[in-house]
């Protein structure tokens, strides 16, 4: 009968959760509730926390002139980077918190888990994350789904387009052996070919490996114009320092980690390394400068991740759509979102257009920057460049 007792305890616990979550309904709240699903903890918690700061800045601004005369309230749910948690978080937001609009999103797996639920309970979904095209396919008919982040194929296209712009003819790839690097291998071949670049060799490595000199020595032997590193922040410093140790100096070292290590700007060996991102803090656009200044004032730190301005853009454009729609009706909101035309801190104009499969795609391009004397100088594309690319770069 231990089982029976355990079940009794179980039922008591479930009742406790229900009691803890119970919120009396005292008529319609005056606020507009925006549900946010982001990973505040777990492996990508740092990016989720940057997003939370971006939302906070946007919220401060929005509530100075609230849409429809109603203050906006954020209900933030931590998905932990875990799909079951993300699905539960969405159902909590919709059924218990009674949100009007859903924003957020970072990883593909959690986004798919949420997307599957939203398909059954349509709501305006203004989604920042997920680059996996499978997610695009899943929501291809969803008119109420607005996607801000470039898709995986957009990222690959930007990277190889930038490499072509340097005049390089050959490249060698070094990719970490996890999902991040492996997906790059799959896409790189076709995109490199399309842009007239020959990949001379591809090496894999385990992210976090302290000694990358064997890999760099082999890359040196391949003698390609550009060395492309697809790894994480912890791999960037070994590449920068050990390339010098082995005398490896291609015309350009291009790294594309999701975020750069803190203090990288102080690393002399990192000078002239290039990177791809949606945004950098050195972005010269006036709205970006304002964002960086406000971010510093509010949080007393530097914004280092593009997820913060992306989240800011996400909420600002949603609030703007509510104002233009004049109501929270899904059809009206969808129409207003489709008419979005916004130039904010990301520095590129945001409009929503059809993508390969999706109805409403926002950004489709990354920018390239180069570390020059401790600053991320935007060097590509020309229209947003804040400086010239040093090419060939010297890494000795």
């Amino acid at each position, binding site marked *: 009968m*231990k089982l029976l007792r355990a079940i009794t*305890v179980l039922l008591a616990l479930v009742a406790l*959760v229900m009691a803890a979550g119970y919120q009396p309904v005292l008529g319609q709240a005056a606020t507009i509730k925006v549900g946010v699903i982001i990973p505040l903890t777990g492996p990508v918690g740092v990016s989720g926390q940057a997003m939370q700061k971006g939302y906070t800045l946007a919220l401060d601004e929005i509530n100075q002139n609230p849409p429809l005369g109603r203050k906006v309230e954020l209900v933030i749910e931590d998905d932990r980077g875990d799909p079951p948690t993300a699905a539960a978080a969405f159902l909590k937001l919709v*059924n218990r918190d009674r949100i009007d609009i859903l924003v957020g999103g970072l990883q*593909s797996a959690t986004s798919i*888990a949420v997307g599957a639920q939203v398909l059954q309970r349509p709501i305006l979904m203004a989604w920042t994350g997920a680059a996996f095209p499978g997610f695009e396919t899943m929501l291809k008919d969803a008119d109420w789904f607005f996607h801000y982040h470039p898709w995986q194929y957009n990222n690959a296209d930007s990277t190889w387009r930038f490499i072509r712009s340097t005049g390089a003819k050959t490249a060698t790839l070094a990719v970490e052996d996890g*999902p991040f690097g492996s997906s790059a291998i799959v896409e790189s071949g076709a995109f490199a070919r399309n842009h007239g670049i020959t990949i001379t060799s591809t090496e894999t490595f385990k992210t976090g490996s302290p000694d990358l000199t064997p890999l760099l020595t082999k890359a040196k032997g391949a003698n390609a114009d550009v060395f492309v590193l697809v790894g994480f922040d912890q791999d960037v410093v070994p590449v920068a320092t050990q390339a010098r140790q082995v005398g490896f100096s291609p015309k350009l070292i291009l790294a594309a980690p999701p975020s750069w290590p803190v203090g990288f700007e102080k690393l002399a060996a990192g000078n002239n390394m290039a990177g791809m991102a949606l945004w950098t803090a050195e972005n010269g656009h006036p709205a970006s400068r304002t964002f960086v200044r406000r971010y510093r004032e509010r949080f007393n730190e530097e914004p280092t991740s593009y997820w913060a301005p992306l989240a800011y853009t996400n909420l600002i454009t949603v609030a703007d759509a509510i104002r233009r729609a004049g109501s929270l009706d899904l059809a009206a909101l969808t129409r207003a979102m489709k008419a979005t035309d916004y130039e904010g801190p990301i520095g590129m104009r945001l409009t929503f257009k059809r993508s390969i499969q999706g109805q409403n795609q926002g950004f489709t391009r990354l920018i390239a920057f180069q570390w020059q004397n401790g600053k991320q100088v935007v060097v590509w594309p020309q229209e947003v460049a804040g400086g010239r690319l040093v090419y060939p770069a010297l890494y000795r």
Partner: protein
Amino acid sequence: MSGRQAVQVLALAVVLVAAVAFPFWANRTQPYYLQIAINIISFAILALSWDMLARTGQLSLAHAAFYGLGAYTSALVTTRMGLPIFLGMLLGSLVAVVVAAGLGMLTLRLRGIYFAIGTLAFSETLRVVTNQLRFTGGATGLVVPPLLGGQRVPQYLLILAVLLLAVVVSWMVNRSRWHFAFTAIRTNEAVAGAMGVDVVRFKVLAFMISAFFAGITGAYYAHVFLFISPIEVYSLAVSVGALVAPIFGGLYTTAGPILGAVVLRVGEEILRSTVQRGYPIIYGLILALVILYMPRGLIGVWASVKSGLATGRKETREPAGP
């Protein structure tokens, strides 16, 4: 049947009826609770299946491997071959069983930490291989068709049925001669062998039963959350989660792993939705305290309270099962 037993059977029947009726109420009023219940039940099955193997004294870190095999087999046969999802799930669990039998023959002669390392290595190998193969979707993963049209009520009832099956199997194991064989092997494998217990056979059987439930839960996960990738389904977190719940709830029993899974998941959900960022610290602290000061888990505490023993008194007697 005595009066006490009749009351107990009646109470069990009421609990079962409540569990079956729950999704119909929850889906109408609070689908959030339905989702939480599905998450808890899936976790409970993993925990209970891990415990069934642990009864033979083996600390397995291969649960993620069987979970992942179930998920990938079902995903691949339904997406690439167009087989029905139920058949895919069944094949997923059978593949896990077959692989478990093979792995069992290879590794069950290992003991203790060597067995744990061997099973962990197996799980990691599967992750890396799946990562590299094109037909598995590689590292970017696979989008998977929904089970039962994506409807949560029948999905809940299905996973509840799997849990009930796992409970029945666990209960039968603990009530049969297998229980004595498992306990003998766990206590002293050499002595068990000398006493005539077919050690390898029982260990492999435990491994196969355990893998069946891990595999079917993995397949279920794939068709409910609609996306799988090697880094998620072969994650060490799956194996560790499966062993934490039984330790927390009480090892070698049917109720302990289920209770552990419920308390851990419910506690985590309450903390997640109230504390936000700092909750993993609180969660970890509670977990550490329970493991340090309640070595027999929640079931052990219950037993101590019941028998009026002082807290902390250790019993050497093995838990007798449900």
